[in-house]
């Protein structure tokens, strides 16, 4: 079996990634509206990782070819482009390449540990990548948000973009991603493999 993506793999990746994007948008909206700003900044990427895990685990086991994580990253970047954060597409492309380098080798997506590591690294880099404009072009970034953020909102954004906070966000993301990945593996074994769908 070749490791190159075929048309049916492309279609599977696209469909699952659309579902992942919908889940991400819903999670982000609910957290922004219901949770406190602290929880929003510290845990929203982690909660996304928790909720997207079952879809990712099934998708990666079904396709199991090089490019799975890159396509996931590409779709997230395209969605953020539509929300006006075009810089995030570049971040996601880099994240996708790093994750694919991590997944180099034979049947890595079928290996639960390697696949889990890839998934966790993807989400940690996603969290870290969200803070990149605060380090690379802080003044322009804050100026572009000045009209859509309150003074207090901007201060909170800068506070949660500090290196210590980014480290804390990464730790929280790792914990949520591990829990989500384990639940995803459990669903895969309990429901999907039993029904012989993968």
């Amino acid at each position, binding site marked *: 079996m070749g490791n190159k993506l075929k*048309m049916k793999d492309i279609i599977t990746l*696209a469909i699952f990634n659309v579902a992942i994007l919908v889940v991400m948008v819903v999670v982000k909206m609910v957290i922004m509206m219901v949770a406190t700003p602290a929880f929003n900044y510290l845990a929203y990427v982690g909660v996304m990782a928790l909720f997207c895990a079952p*879809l990712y685990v*099934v998708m990666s086991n079904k396709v199991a070819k090089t490019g799975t994580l890159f396509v996931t990253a590409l779709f997230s970047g395209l969605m953020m482009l539509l929300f006006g954060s*075009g810089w995030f597409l570049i971040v996601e492309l880099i994240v996708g390449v790093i994750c694919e380098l991590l997944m180099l080798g034979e049947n890595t997506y079928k290996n639960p540990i390697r696949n889990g590591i890839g998934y966790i690294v993807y989400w940690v880099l996603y969290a870290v990548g969200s803070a990149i404009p605060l380090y690379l072009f802080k003044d322009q970034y804050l100026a572009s948000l*000045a009209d859509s953020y309150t003074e207090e909102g901007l201060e909170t954004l800068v506070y949660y973009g500090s290196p210590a906070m980014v480290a804390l966000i990464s730790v929280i993301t790792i914990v949520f991603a591990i829990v989500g990945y384990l639940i995803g593996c459990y*669903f895969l074994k309990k429901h999907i493999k039993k029904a012989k*769908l993968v």
Partner: protein
Amino acid sequence: MEKLDIRTHLIVLISATLFWFVFQSNAEIHGLVVLCALYMCVAGYWEKAPGFIMTYIIMLLLAYLTAPIMGIMYVVICTFARAIPLTMVAAPILYANPSRMMYSFQRIHVPKNVLVMLCILIRFFPVIEKEMLSIRNGIRARGIFPTWWSILKNPIMAYECFFVPLTVRCLKLSTELGASAELRGLDSSNPRSCIYNIGFTYKDILAILGFVLGCIGVMLGVRTWLS
């Protein structure tokens, strides 16, 4: 009226995104919304433009009304409102015929795999929304979570009840769509043909020029007015 080429929509979308980055004040974004609405009318989607403008106005009003009560709501609503102009210029691509789109993008040498992904990305959002609604209705019909707060009583079960059917539906849809795509020859290495007349005309060039010049005008006008 003959609709504009899809490559024109793509160029305008890229231009709008670039200007969107440069625009900083709300007044510039208001101007961009007006320009995008005009572009939608020129592109033949005049009946869709008022809906977007109304949504933008309502979101801005809600943002200003909620700002004194809840700062975070202002941020949330403003973030979504600022995405509306980009959605407006993306709309002609979203509403376009997939056959036209694939043929048009093939002529600018977009790889086939990327094209298929783009088509599914564009077409599949309403399908997933529908699937999610039917899963929710199925849960309600079986009396598992009769009210929304019963989800809070058993969140793990709610997670399983929602994500397992969603995953299975995605698997089934991907299998069916994959088989259908192969049957239709989507995997073929031959170049794709199309029954539609596709080509760049003077209207496309005028639309692109008009949009870019309009954006420059908005930027210069607002900045001169603000200074």
